[in-house]
């Protein structure tokens, strides 16, 4: 009897989310423990109850309506039967996965003079131990009790009055919470931080723009490094073997006027490889030196292994907003290959080191200059997916161009600092697609064409399925091997997030926000 009591006490109702559990997330496919499903940025579910033979029977089981009409960009986490979502602007709700009923709500009071360029949004939470972590638009990292939603601690990451905000889902690594910032249209100095998960004490900070005397500072004219942006607003990946965090950085500021920041502008538009324990830079790769089109490299880095010229290599795939697909060695940062995966008119190609060879006359002008891809890029913040089952990389692609304008670039703290603007190209036929690539070669295997450029990411599953949402409100499934459409549902609102999959009572479900609602789908 005594023994039994001890055993019961050791198995709490709320199992702790340990670092080891996230590391081995593929061994518990019923949960979705971290933003991309695993540390490798795969957004792949090993579940196969819902598959290419029965997906026709998929139906909405429940929906949860957000209380805000802002874009609903969250990736839910699911931990042992409870779903944790962020809601715009900076709120969290815990939902029972069987009924869709809320278990608790955290509602943050925000100042009314926030600095956000593109909507009061949030992309999700992180979980570690018995805490849930949220970044807020007023620049805080908040730790909430996973059982009750009560605030356990909160710590200020950056000053919103200086133009910073937080929209990114944090990443829990070992005993730390890694979090980035937004504010690339306000001339902030970008940073990536790690905090002690238990106490909220800062563990390290990496400034994404080197200060005077540090290597890279010379890539900024004069004092322009102080207002050069290079923000960190999309969740990165992690490899426990290299102990490196891979994180993309945003545009240099001001966005469209490069005249006031001559130079390559490091580390804007880069992928950074940082030591997870110290935040020290191991290597970096800059995709778009001296960017003048707002092509943030804020995509989710996808970690995979493949044979390159006869040798097995640890790699990272990066379908960049600038319309080039890149493969790098993720131990050293060495450039392996790069090629366009959507229409682009700004570079003749990449040289042997991966640097773009620019086409003259593509910089923004007062009269406006037409360039592909569009300001929103061939890809944006939403997630790609890699399926170890098909060995394919799935990317939601935007096919569009923009007219780019240069303008004033006068810095005033806390005010917009973008140096120009953009417009659609009149009469141009824009469209979108989900494309499947061999990640090692960049070769396209299939394409599913969409009516308009998408704003949502993809999920692939062991059921040979790829899930995605359109701008016209359909949530749909494709055959992961052939791209053939197998199922769809008109959910009534544009998709602005990434799907996930999980188990509830042993049954598989797929979740996705469409419009201002979160939908959960299961087999009839």
């Amino acid at each position: 009897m005594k023994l039994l009591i001890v055993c019961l006490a050791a198995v709490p109702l709320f199992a702790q989310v340990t670092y080891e559990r996230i590391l081995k997330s593929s061994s518990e496919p019923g949960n979705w423990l971290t933003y991309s499903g695993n540390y490798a940025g795969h957004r792949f579910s090993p579940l196969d109850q819902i598959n290419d033979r029965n997906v026709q029977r998929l139906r909405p089981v429940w929906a949860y309506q957000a209380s805000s009409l802002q874009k609903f960009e969250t990736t839910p986490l699911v931990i042992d039967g409870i779903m944790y979502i962020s809601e715009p602007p900076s709120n969290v709700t815990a939902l029972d996965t069987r009924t869709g009923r809320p278990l608790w709500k955290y509602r943050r009071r925000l100042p009314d003079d926030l600095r956000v360029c593109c909507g009061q949004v949030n992309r999700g939470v992180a979980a570690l131990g018995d805490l849930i972590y949220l970044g807020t638009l007023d620049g805080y990292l908040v730790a909430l009790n996973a059982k009750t939603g009560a605030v356990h601690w909160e710590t200020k990451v950056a000053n919103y009055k200086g133009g910073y905000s937080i929209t990114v889902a944090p990443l829990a690594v070992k005993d730390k919470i890694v979090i980035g910032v937004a504010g690339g249209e306000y001339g902030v100095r970008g940073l990536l931080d790690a905090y002690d998960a238990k106490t909220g004490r800062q563990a390290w900070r990496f400034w994404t723009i080197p200060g005077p005397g540090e290597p890279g500072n010379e890539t900024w004219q004069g004092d322009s490094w102080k207002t050069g942006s290079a923000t960190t607003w999309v969740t990165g990946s992690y490899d426990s073997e290299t102990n490196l965090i891979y994180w993309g950085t945003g545009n240099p500021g001001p966005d469209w006027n490069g005249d006031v920041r001559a130079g390559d502008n490091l580390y804007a538009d880069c992928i950074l490889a940082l030591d997870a324990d110290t935040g020290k830079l191991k290597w970096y790769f800059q995709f778009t030196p001296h960017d003048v089109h707002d092509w943030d490299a804020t995509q989710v880095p996808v970690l995979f292994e493949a044979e390159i010229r006869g040798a097995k290599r640890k790699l990272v795939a990066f379908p960049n907003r600038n319309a080039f697909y890149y493969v790098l060695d993720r131990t050293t940062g060495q450039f392996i290959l790069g090629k366009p995966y959507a229409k682009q008119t700004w570079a003749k190609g990449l040289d042997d080191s991966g640097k773009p060879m620019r086409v003259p006359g593509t910089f923004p002008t007062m009269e406006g200059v037409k360039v592909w891809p569009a300001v929103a890029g061939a890809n944006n913040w939403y997630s790609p997916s890699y399926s170890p089952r098909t060995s394919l990389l799935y990317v939601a692609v935007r096919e569009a161009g923009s007219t780019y304008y240069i303008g004033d670039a006068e810095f005033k703290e806390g005010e917009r600092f973008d140096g120009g603007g953009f417009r659609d190209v009149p009469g141009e036929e824009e469209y979108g697609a989900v494309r499947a690539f061999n990640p090692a070669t960049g070769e396209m295997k299939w394409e599913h064409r969409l009516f308009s450029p998408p704003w949502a990411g993809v999920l692939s599953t062991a059921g040979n399925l790829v899930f995605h949402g359109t701008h016209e409100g359909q949530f749909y499934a494709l055959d992961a091997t052939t791209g053939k459409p197998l199922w769809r549902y008109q959910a009534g609102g544009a998709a602005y997030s990434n799907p996930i999959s999980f188990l509830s009572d042993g049954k598989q479900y797929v979740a996705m926000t469409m419009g201002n609602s979160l939908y959960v789908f299961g087999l009839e």
Partner: protein
Amino acid sequence: MLWFPALLLLQAVDMPAVGKNPHTTQADIAQGRKLFLGRCAGCHGPGGDGGKGANLATATLSRATDDLSLYRVIRYGIPDTEMPRHLMSEREVWQVAAFVRRLGQVERAALPGDPERGRQLARGKAGCLQCHAIAGEGGHIGPPLTDIGKKRSAAWLRAKLLDAAAEVADEFRTVQLTTRAGQKLSGVRVNEDTWSIQVRDAGGKPHSFWKADVTNLKLDRATLMPSYRGRLSDTELNDIVAYLAGLRGDQ
């Protein structure tokens, strides 16, 4: 960082601190003209007298009666219209606003036609009302003309009457399709997505099709509107233009 061009919240911090345009010198107007030619002329015409965008060369702008409302329209656009927001600094927005106000101060010659004769022509020989509605009267294939004089300049209306195919808005693109069952239909596309298309036929009736059930789908920028070059005399053209330019949604 900027990732969603079409939507931007009105932010208190992004509105100017003053309600009156502080940038109205000759140099500001010259700079405003340069900005206007780059960003605005594509829709409003280099002289601001309208095109796809509204005629700005008028003494009053209904959406921008004072400086601050003009600032707001330029900076944030007009919801549910083709007028987008524009990313410009506060000073640049004011400079464009100063130039736009200047456009309205230029003396315009009166239109040569007789609007009453134009009214009769629109209902008779020209047949405008077969496809267009004016104040509830008429057809529904083309866009309503009830307040067309507010939206389009006389020069634009004349050009459209002479060459109807020159510019067709996205919401009035023509479709020809054949279904698997053999049904043929032509009309105007009213909506479309990856898997379906919605079409309004010549009688104004809406139809909806799954693309999987359509064997032949032709989407065109052609227009169903005839060109009136040679169909109307110069005098008649002047009359119709005078009539249409005077339609301001208030009769």
